[in-house]
């Protein structure tokens, strides 16, 4: 019992310890070494951040995340359905191709993509950032959705075909409604991935497209610890919110064949 409580305390400390310094930093107006706590608290930086160009980054990040999510779903829902239901000749190859960019270190992959994107004038543009986000987003989406569709018994579809429904009608009236919770979960995963994606955004987007993580990075590099902390806290909020939702709707079996933990 005591051990268990200690365990929880330790876990809480490990998780929230580093975060607590973020909160402290965000309210610190003056904090010099060797003081353990800030000498002066205040909301100066909060006001500065919320009134400044960070809000633009925040909005931009959300916009990009929404677009990335929509594009991934449009592309991967049909693909995942086909992979889950039909005997596709090179199924494992297709799935592996989707994993490949994740198998290599991100930096070289993205740098090479950047070279390619220069050719098409995509560097420093929002479409460029969307594309680079899609590299990772499609992986999350395909792997989750294949499991989602596999978890729906084929007999439910056969029963509908049997009473006269066309394949397309079966998909819209039976399969899709049953897959909605899983698709929502995949959408959340992709949305969060896009919102937090940093490496690709920095390489492809800057200096014209500044998403939240890039903004945070720039602030931290400029020793504006307060601004960086506030950005970090703001970035965490949607994550926490959506993960709570995710937890409620995501069935564990959807994650079973999902490689990345």
């Amino acid at each position, binding site marked *: 019992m005591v051990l268990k409580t200690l365990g929880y305390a330790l876990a809480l400390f490990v998780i929230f310890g580093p975060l607590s310094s973020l909160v402290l930093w965000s309210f610190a107006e003056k904090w010099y070494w060797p003081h353990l706590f800030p000498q002066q608290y205040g909301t100066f930086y909060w006001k500065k951040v919320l009134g400044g160009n960070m809000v633009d980054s925040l909005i931009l990040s959300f916009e990009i995340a929404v677009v990335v999510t929509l594009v991934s779903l449009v592309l991967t829902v049909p693909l995942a359905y086909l992979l889950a239901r039909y005997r596709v000749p090179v199924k494992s190859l297709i799935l592996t191709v989707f994993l490949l960019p994740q198998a290599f270190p991100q930096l070289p992959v993205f740098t090479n993509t950047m070279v390619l994107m220069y050719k098409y004038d995509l560097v420093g543009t929002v479409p460029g950032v969307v594309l680079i986000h899609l590299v990772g987003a499609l992986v999350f989406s395909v792997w989750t959705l294949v499991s989602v569709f596999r978890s729906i*018994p084929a*007999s*439910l579809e056969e*029963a*509908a*075909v*049997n*009473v006269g429904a066309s394949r397309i009608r079966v998909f819209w*009236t039976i399969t899709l409604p*049953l897959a909605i919770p899983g698709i929502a979960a995949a959408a959340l995963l992709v949305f969060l991935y896009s919102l937090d994606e940093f490496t690709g955004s920095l390489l492809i987007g800057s200096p014209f497209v500044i998403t939240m993580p890039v903004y945070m990075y720039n602030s931290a590099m400029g020793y504006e610890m307060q601004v960086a902390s506030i950005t970090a806290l703001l970035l965490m909020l949607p994550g926490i919110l959506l993960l709570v939702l995710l937890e409620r709707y995501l069935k564990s079996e959807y994650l079973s064949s999902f490689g990345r933990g």
Partner: protein
Amino acid sequence: MNMDIRIEHLYKKYRDKTALSDINLTLPAGSFTAILGPSGCGKTTLMRCLAGFLQVDAGTIRFGDRDVTHLPPQNRQTAMVFQNYALWPHMSVYDNIAYGLKLKKLDKKEIEKKVYAILEKVELDTTDVKKRRPTEYSGGQQQRIALARALVLEPKLLLMDEPLSNLDAKVRQRLRVEIRSLQKELGITAIYVTHDQDEALSMADQVVLMKDGRIEQVGEPEQLYYGPQSYFVSHFLGNSNTLKVESKNGKIFVGSQTIDLPPEAFRARRGDGRYLLVVRSEDAVLATEPAGTPEFVSLRGVLRESLFVGSGYRHWVQIEGQNLFVHSDDRRMDKGDVYVRMPVSRCFVFPENGGPEE
């Protein structure tokens, strides 16, 4: 109009494995056919070919005068009842049943009338069927809903794929009777796939026993039970015992004992060689002395054990090193030397090629 369903020379292969081989079968209009067999015998494959979920490699399927072999499942007017019910959990019970009717573009009033009529037929409580989801019902009730969904379309052929195997024994017994009487009442041609021989024998007009993608024997339940044409059929149906016997110079030897069986007992030409004698547990009788009438043959053995099985006792007898189980209603016998009397008309002898299945 002739609405018999005729299956001729049907073949189906999965990659290299033969799933169905030269299936020939007629389902008379309004009849109930049970397809029985061990798992992997092709019974479900046959049913899926009839529904159109699987394309056959060769052969024809005719519903009446219509050749449906290459029709897509949507146009076959079959209705299937699945082992896992396959009800749509995101729709109300009403919408589940009305789904097919809506596709037919019937008007709302008519759909409603039909749905409620069929719910009454399958004896399902109609309160709140427009609100309640199938998952709120018990397994037996869910299978009634699935049955209603299938029957409401007045199909040409009702296909049932082990519909009762997920249910408790009590519910199963009851639904068996109900499905059978419903099928008779509506006059629907039905196929029922099962691995449960009690189910097959008790429900069907015609039983099809399959093995390794082939039909072993087709006939009325009694025909199959009392007139098995192969060792497999005799061994598969009922609590069967197999004794290895040998025919030599017109005599039949069980170890050192001889018995006298008429030629009718032999399901194949009799000659010298090894044979398998099949007798069911409930047909054999234990006694303290040989029968002494030509209707019975007797073998001397040792009673090893008597097991209580509820409806009676199961006696384990060893005859010349071979095991035999005999069923009786009481336990009057003491362990030790006994005679097993077997009615000649219930002894089936097959040549031993391949031997017993196990």
